[in-house]
């Protein structure tokens, strides 16, 4: 199973943190710091695999990819294949790219819920759900339609930003 999906920027700020095990907030922070510590010392043309047992415990492997200002990280155990996980990062980023048109770090900051919808479309409960970006985008668009539909029912906007945009 997949233990964790993380997106951290090159300054160490987390942009997405998903842990598929129950962990305390302190433990999560500690893991994030350790992972960032290892990643920022990696050169650019080396392998995408990093030893993870010292951070996440036995039977843990870590694969990461560096895109612009972000590190995309997946932590998994022996039930997953290393190259397949690397592929999955690619799928995630491609899907983001299609959803946001040349996705940047700011898109990830301001679209927290859509980001999570996309991730949940790919990985759910630590298991890989879908590996085709077209399918995932279809599912995410369905959800957005539903959300938009439920929002349009109210006559008065419920949010300050909705109020102001009127």
């Amino acid at each position, binding site marked *: 199973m997949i233990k964790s999906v993380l997106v951290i920027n090159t300054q160490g700020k987390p942009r997405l943190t998903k842990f598929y095990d129950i962990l305390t907030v302190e433990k999560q922070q500690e893991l994030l710091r350790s992972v960032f510590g290892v990643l920022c010392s990696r050169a650019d043309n*080396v392998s995408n695999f990093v030893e993870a047992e010292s951070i996440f415990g036995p039977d843990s492997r870590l694969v990461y990819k560096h895109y612009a200002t972000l590190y995309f990280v997946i932590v998994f155990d022996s039930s997953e294949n290393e190259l*397949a996980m690397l592929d999955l990062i690619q799928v995630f980023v491609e899907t983001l790219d299609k959803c946001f048109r040349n996705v940047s770090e700011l898109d990830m900051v301001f679209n927290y819920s859509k980001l999570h919808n996309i991730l949940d479309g790919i990985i759910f409960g*630590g298991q890989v759900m879908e590996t085709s970006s077209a399918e995932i985008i279809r599912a995410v668009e369905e959800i957005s339609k539903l959300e938009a539909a439920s929002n349009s029912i109210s006559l008065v906007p419920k949010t300050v930003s909705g109020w102001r945009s009127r």
Partner: protein
Amino acid sequence: MASPSLMDNLFQRSLDDIIKGLRHQQSTESTFISKVIEEIRREIKTTDLQTKSTALQKLTYLNSIHYIDMKDLNSGNEFEVFVRKKAVGVVFRLFEKYPDAARVCFKRLVESLESSDSQILSSVVGVFCELASKDPRSYLPLAPEFYRILVGSRNNWVLIKVLKIFANLAPLEPRLAKRVVEPICDHLRKTGAKSMVFECIRTVATSFTEYESAVKLAAVKIREFLLEDDPNLKYLGLHGLSIMAPKHLWAVLENKDIVIQSLNDEDLNIKLESLCLVMAMVSESNVVEICRVLVNYALKSDLEFCNEILGSILSTCCQNVYEIITDFDWYVSLLGEMSRIPHCQKGEEIENQLIDIGMRVKDVRPELVRVGHHLLIDPALLGNPYLHRMLSAAAWVCGEYVEFSGNPVELLEALLQPRTSLLPSSIRTVYMQSAFKVLFFCVCTYIEQKEDMTLEVSDLTSKGECSESSDLASAKAPVECDQDEGFNPRNSSQSYERPFCC
């Protein structure tokens, strides 16, 4: 309480508002967050679904990006309403907590194995993969189903999971292994996907090690990975070799040149994998050569890798009470050499081995004292805190076996040099005790030498003038005895011992 909730609903901040607000508030972030949490606490109790869901969204954001602990705000089962359940994914987590549930849902899961929808099949096979890794025997009866998928499916995600399942099932049932090995080799030969190739290699190397042709095929594919430029494939090739190493060391030896070359790679992980492989190749006949190569690499490496190398050498050589060492003189001098490597931080382990070897192997004590002596006289080593434990061992060994020392006076000076003030007091204690031992040895040696010298002198004199000295001796002796008997040198001398004559 209608009016407060109306106000809350009208002016509820959305998640976007929170994010924008936080980005503006650089310095007062924590007060802003506390305010937001107070609002969420109120909002989450409303009956209005829209308000509640926005509140939950904000809370989830704060929890994951700003590490706000959710437990204080947990209002119980209201959360379940908003969680999307994807049937198979949830079912697996359920099985983890309540294994009995697996039996209940088993039939449904097995039916899903027949599904033509690749996504459902992928999920179900994923669940079985996890379950089979924890309790393989219970899933052995499903082997025919998995076999059908192994030979029929074209979906690599599904095939990888099925391979992992067979890696767990095959060791339990040799007849199953026999049936399955051929389709696996088939995939290994034909597949274009590197992930499939690697998974096949791993499956064969883990659970089909008795099938020579399969192992040979896997070894060929591993070599292909090793020769690639892509560092990921190189790393996986080395990893594959280390899985093969325990039962098929020949595959590692075949690729010896690439493995040793990889010690120089830029990628630390590749270096570490090759180091493990090099240690796997060590035997009685080649330990000297390999250690020489490794120490040379250690000298050229950075701090971390240097100590990884030294640590590996130390742990491999001391396995099974130094099983692979035949020449202890060489090994002890190697230990001394390792101590002098600038990055060395393995003082404690070297200390343990020096003392251990000294106690077990009598013949090596002279060499041990020689090496210890060299380490003690070097004032530079006293300044390196990582080496203090090793110096303690050197001091102890030199004190304990000082009789083998060629130059005990120089040793004593080394033990008493002023720079020893840099050592912690526990180690200075050892230095002092050893200094006493050396001093005592020196004094005893001096006295013995004196005795021998006087013995030699008297030998010379007694041979030439034996009678004279005997008269002299006997002349003295009667003075001490009873004088009433009268003085008769000739007679009385015969009854007394002549200490200085032989």
